[in-house]
C-alpha cells in the first residue's frame, strides 16, 4: 500500500470538501488552458493569412494598414498603385526575380464581405498556409476572358447562401449602403475552407470590375473614365512570390527606394501586429488564470489545514504504528499534489471541452479547427507548475503533521 493511496484515502474521507477544492482548481486551470488554446488559435489564424506569398506591394503608407487590407480584408482601404508599376513585377525590371505576382483590387463588398478583383492565377499560382493548393468545393475557377465571373470563399458562400450559377452585385465601399453596381457577377466556383481570411472574401475577375466602372463612367459622361478605356490604370496591391529569400530582400529594398510604392513582408508585419495586439492581452489573461489557480491552491491549503485538527489523532496513530515524521508529512504533501493534479486534469477537461464545444464557431470565425485533444505544448508546464504550487501550499499543513505531538494526541480521544 503506497503512501499515495494513503493520501488518496484521506481525500476520499473528506469527499465534499475535496471535490470543491478540485473544482476551484479546475476552473483556474481551465482558464489558463482556454487562454493558451485561444491564443494558439488566434496566433495560427493570424499567421496563416500571410503564408502564401513573400511580399505585398502596395501604395506608400502604413505597412500594417496595407497588410490588414490585403491579407485580412480589414481596415480602411488604402491607396492604389499604377498598373504600370505592377507591370515592373511581371514584365519589367523586377520580373526575373519574381515567380508570381497577383494583382488585387479592393473597394467593394457583397453583404459585408470584401469583393476582391483579381486574376484566376490567384488560385493557381499562389498557395496558402505554406504549400497547400486552393481547391474548389463546387464549380471551378473563374476565367480571365469571362469578365463577370467570381468565386466565393467558403464562409462567404455559406453566409451569403450564394450557389454556383447565381448572380450577385458588388456594392461600392467596404460596408453596406454604398452604391450598388448594376452589372452582376455570376458565381462559378466556391472554394474549400482554407482556414485563412480567403474564406471570408468574394473574388471576381479584375477586368469585370474595370468594365463596370468604365460602363458607368460612360453613362454618367465622366470624361476620364472614357479616356483610356481598355487598360486597367491602377490596382490596390500585388501579392508577390519571389524566386528566393535573397531576391525577396533585394526587390523589397528596391521597391521601397522607389517613390511609387512600398513592399512589405506580410509574415513579419503580422508577427509584429500580433505581438502588439494579442500578445499583451494574452499575458493579462494568462496572469488572471494563474492568479485564479494560485487562489485555488490556497484553497487546497486551507482545506487541508482545517482538517488537521481532526486528523491529529489519526496522524499520531500512524506515527505509533511506526510511520516517521517525514512519512506523515509526505502523505499530506501528496494529498495536496493529488488535489492539485486532479484539479489540473479537471481544468484540462473543462478548458478543452469548452473550446471544443465552441470549435464550430471558432472554425467559422477564424478557419482554425480545434480538436478536443489539441494541446498546446506550453500546457506541459501545467504539470510541474501544479506540483510546485501543491508543494508550496501543502507545506504548511504538512509541517503541522510533521510536528504532531504523538504522545499527547494519542491520549486525547478522537
Amino acid at each position, binding site marked *: *500500500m*503506497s*503512501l499515495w493511496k*494513503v493520501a488518496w*484515502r*484521506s481525500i*476520499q*474521507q473528506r469527499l465534499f470538501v475535496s471535490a470543491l477544492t478540485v473544482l476551484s482548481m479546475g476552473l483556474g486551470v481551465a482558464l489558463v488552458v482556454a487562454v493558451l488554446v485561444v491564443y494558439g488559435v488566434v496566433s495560427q489564424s493570424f499567421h496563416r493569412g500571410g503564408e502564401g506569398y513573400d511580399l505585398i506591394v502596395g501604395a506608400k503608407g502604413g505597412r500594417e494598414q496595407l497588410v490588414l487590407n490585403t491579407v485580412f480584408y480589414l481596415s480602411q482601404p488604402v491607396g492604389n498603385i499604377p498598373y504600370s508599376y505592377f507591370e515592373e513585377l511581371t514584365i519589367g525590371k523586377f520580373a526575373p526575380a519574381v515567380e508570381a505576382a497577383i494583382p488585387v483590387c479592393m473597394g467593394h463588398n457583397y453583404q459585408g464581405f470584401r469583393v476582391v478583383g483579381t486574376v484566376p492565377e490567384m488560385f493557381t499560382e499562389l498557395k496558402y498556409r505554406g504549400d497547400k493548393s486552393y481547391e474548389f468545393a463546387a464549380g471551378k475557377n473563374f476565367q480571365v476572358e469571362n469578365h463577370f465571373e467570381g468565386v466565393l470563399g467558403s464562409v462567404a458562400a455559406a453566409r451569403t447562401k450564394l450557389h454556383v450559377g447565381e448572380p450577385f452585385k458588388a456594392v461600392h465601399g467596404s460596408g453596406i449602403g454604398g452604391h450598388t453596381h448594376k452589372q452582376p457577377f455570376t458565381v462559378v466556383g466556391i472554394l474549400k475552407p482554407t482556414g485563412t481570411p480567403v474564406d471570408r472574401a468574394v473574388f471576381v475577375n479584375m477586368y469585370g470590375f474595370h468594365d463596370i466602372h468604365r460602363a458607368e463612367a460612360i453613362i454618367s459622361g465622366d470624361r476620364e473614365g472614357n479616356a483610356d478605356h481598355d487598360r486597367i490604370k491602377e490596382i490596390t496591391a500585388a501579392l508577390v512570390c519571389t524566386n528566393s529569400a535573397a531576391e525577396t530582400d533585394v526587390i523589397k529594398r528596391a521597391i521601397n527606394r522607389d517613390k511609387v510604392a512600398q513592399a512589405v513582408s506580410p509574415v513579419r508585419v503580422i508577427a509584429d501586429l500580433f505581438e502588439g495586439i494579442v500578445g499583451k492581452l494574452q499575458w493579462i489573461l494568462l496572469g488572471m488564470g494563474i492568479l485564479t489557480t494560485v487562489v485555488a491552491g490556497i484553497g487546497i491549503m486551507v482545506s487541508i489545514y482545517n482538517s488537521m485538527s481532526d486528523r491529529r*489523532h*489519526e496522524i499520531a*496513530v*500512524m*506515527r*505509533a*504504528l*511506526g*510511520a*516517521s*515524521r*517525514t*512519512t506523515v508529512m509526505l502523505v499530506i504533501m501528496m494529498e495536496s499534489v493529488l488535489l492539485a493534479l486532479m484539479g489540473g486534469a479537471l481544468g484540462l477537461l473543462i478548458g478543452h471541452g469548452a473550446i471544443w464545444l465552441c470549435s464550430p464557431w471558432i472554425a467559422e470565425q477564424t478557419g482554425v479547427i480545434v480538436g478536443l485533444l489539441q494541446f498546446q505544448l506550453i500546457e506541459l508546464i501545467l504539470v510541474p507548475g501544479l506540483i510546485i504550487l501543491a508543494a508550496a501550499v501543502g507545506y504548511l499543513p504538512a509541517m503541522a503533521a510533521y510536528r504532531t505531538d*504523538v*504522545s499527547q494526541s*494519542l*491520549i486525547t*480521544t*478522537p
Partner: protein
Amino acid sequence: MLLLKDLVKTFTQPDGSILPVLDIPEYRVEAGEQVALVGQSGCGKTTLLHMIAGIGRPDSGKVRIDDWDITLMPEAEVDRFRADRIGYVFQTFNLLAGFSALENVLLSMRFAHGRPDRARARHLLDRVGMSHRTTHRPAQLSVGEKQRVAVARALANKPQLLLADEPTANVDAGHQQQILDLIRGTCEEENVALIMVTHSDEVARQFQRVDHLNEFNRSAVGYVQVGNKRI
C-alpha cells in the same frame, strides 16, 4: 528483553509547575513473558507504555529493548524500531477510518519496511477470526471486531513486544474474554512479550505476573517502597 533503568518522566503543566509521573529505578520483562500492569487512573501507565514504545521520550534513564537503548537513537530510527519490533493495541482501537480491515494491517507493514506481506495479513485476520470481514471499514465493524483487527495489526510486523493499553475496557462485556484470550494466545504462539495495562481484576487475575505501577514507580502517590534502595 525489556529493561528500564532510572527512568524519569515529568510533564510541565499549563500553569508551569512540574508534574512528576514516572521515576522507575528498574523494571524488566523477559522475552515471551506476559505481564499485567495495574494502577489507578492517572498513575502513568499509558505514559510508561509510550516511553517503552519510544512514542515519547523520558527526561532521563534508559529504555533497553534487546541490546538497543532506544533513548540513544535518533527519532527516525526509533520510529523504524517501533514499527519493526513493537506492537501496540489501544483502548480505543485507533483503526484508520479510511481503510479496510485488511488495509489497516497492511498499512502497519508499509510503515515498517515498506513491503506489505498480504499472506501474513490474511493469516492474522484469519487467526483473530476476521477473515470474513477483511474488506469492511472500521465503521462497519462492532467494537469487538475492531479490537480483533487492531490485534492483528499490532502483530503484523512480528513484534517482540506487544503493548496493550486497556484493550478490553471499551469492548462489550461479552467479548472481553475473547479479546483477552486472543491477545494472550497469539502472543504465546509468536513468542511475543506482552505488557497489558488493565483496570479489571478479572483480567489481571489470569496473568501469572501482575505488576502494580505504584510499587516500582517512585513518583506514584501511593508509592510503597519494597526494596531498601532510596536516594
